[in-house]
């Protein structure tokens, strides 16, 4: 079996979820690497979009900003932020990736603040940026994140970006587009989906080296468990080679 680190595993798993012919809005870092890896393996016609306007570039290097020159290098289109967001709103974008400081059992994400006073936060983060928009409007939201009980928490301090809100149909009752929502949460320990009715987070794969107890101990809320939980298929040699040699040769992302 190949040797790999948790970031490499998460990127490989994420890439496998991006099928050929799909569209994905990515940020800098791991999501961009996952999309590039998918393109170089099973999804040559995966369309990558950046929220500042770049679409389907031939990426010569990892972007530092989702609006820098790399994001529209020899691209199909260098458009605008409303153009990308409206393409999402129209239902033409399949996937997006989000990050965040906290996530709850319904996949709601906090990237705004820690504390209980919005006017004077204990810790302030950048805020939504495009995260809420992409979480609201793309069909399927995914996340790659290290897992611990502070990050995976019962009650997040601020819902920056919508998951399934309070579960059930609450997301659609709130007015968000029907059929959208969190799809996969990919951690160093496991891969989670969401239970169809309750919309609660549910473990579907366990990563090599971890067990149920590790996963639940590193989660601040009660996880659901799929009927048939399988082991995560670890990164293949082919995936690792392309990731290391072609996608991120300088190890900006996988070296973290």
């Amino acid at each position, binding site marked *: 079996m190949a040797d790999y680190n948790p970031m490499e595993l998460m990127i490989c798993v994420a890439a496998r979820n991006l099928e050929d012919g799909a569209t994905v809005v990515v940020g800098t870092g791991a999501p961009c690497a996952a999309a590039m890896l998918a393109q170089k393996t099973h999804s040559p016609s995966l369309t990558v979009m950046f929220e500042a306007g770049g679409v389907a570039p031939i990426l010569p290097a990892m972007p530092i900003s989702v609006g820098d020159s790399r994001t529209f290098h020899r691209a199909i289109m260098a458009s605008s932020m409303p153009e990308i967001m409206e393409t999402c709103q129209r239902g033409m974008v399949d996937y997006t990736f989000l990050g965040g400081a906290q996530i709850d059992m319904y996949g709601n994400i906090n990237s705004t603040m820690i504390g209980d006073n919005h006017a004077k936060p204990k810790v302030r983060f950048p805020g939504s940026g495009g995260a809420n928009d992409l979480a609201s409007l793309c069909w399927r939201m995914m996340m790659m994140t290290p897992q611990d009980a502070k990050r995976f928490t019962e009650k997040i301090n601020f819902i920056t970006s919508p998951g399934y809100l309070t579960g059930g149909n609450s997301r659609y009752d709130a007015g*968000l587009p029907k059929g959208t929502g969190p799809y996969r949460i990919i951690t160093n320990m496991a891969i989670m989906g969401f239970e169809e009715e309750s919309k609660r987070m549910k473990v579907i794969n366990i990563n090599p080296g971890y067990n149920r107890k590790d996963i639940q101990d590193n989660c601040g809320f009660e996880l659901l468990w799929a009927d048939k939980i399988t082991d995560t298929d670890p990164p293949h040699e082919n995936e690792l080679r392309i990731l290391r040699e072609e996608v991120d040769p300088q190890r900006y992302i996988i070296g973290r």
Partner: protein
Amino acid sequence: MSKAVELKQGQNQLFTDPDADRAREFFRHKSRAMANKVTTAEEAVKTLIKDGDYITIGGFGANRIPTAILHEIVRQKKKNLGFAGHTATHDFQILIAGECIDRLDVAYIIGLEARGLSPHARRAVESGNIKLTEWTNATLSWRIKAAAMGLSFLPARNIMGTDTFKYSAAKEIICPFTGQKYVAHPALYPDFAAIHVHECDVYGNAHVYGASVSDQDLAKAAKRVVITTERIISNDKIRQHPEATFIPFWCVDAVIEVPYGSYPGNMPYEYFSDEEYLKQWLNVEKDPAEFNKFFKKQIIDTKNFNEYLDMNGGIEQMIKLRAIEHLTEKK
């Protein structure tokens, strides 16, 4: 159908007037003459921004930003400005260090994307001294678009159900055709916008290459618009490709020729961002006293943008950044 639904609204402050008739009344008297508008950054900031104004900056944080205008706002000590934090990174970092801002429409602030967070900007925002209303990148784009379209609001399908909505100043509405719930985003007509472009003529007809973010809408939405440009071109060049005109002259109040004007930010097809310099900022910000010295030297005590460029490597450095942009740098 709509009667049964409880319509919510965000609880935070709306910093600008969305009224379309009042905006129209302003635009009615805005000059549309195709006149030579070339001036200096100093003069433009002096005459077109006053304390208390609500301002917006084009580009995307550290990509295609009008740095000369940002520095000039700091040097002229403009105070109590409102600001749209629409993926604001280095632009915000400058203005917040200059203590120019007292209220903020937030989409993305205090971060510099993959480069990390700004310690100084974070301290300033966590102090509680700046009024914050939450939005998102798309929302600020659409608020600007609503103004560009001459409306007081636009409907959208984001932010509902979240705290981002709760701490915004948006309101829910019902689509009269489908009964579907929407969020109404209030139009954002800024008092002032500064946008850096690749080229424009003396009247302000501009070309921009690469991702345009929200700048076409911003040029229309803002009451007063300053353009800094890598180079001034002839009006004839504009007329050769009328479909390429990115901003038309009637939106523009002042034109300033500022080569390398997005430095230390990226200018697509021209030069890449100066990553070493931006890292230095983030690093020196850790120590407030050190940062004060740095900021004073770099901006406050600097005469103008050309002097700033010279201080940071001048043409030689620009040539290096051009090579990085064109992927031809020697490593």
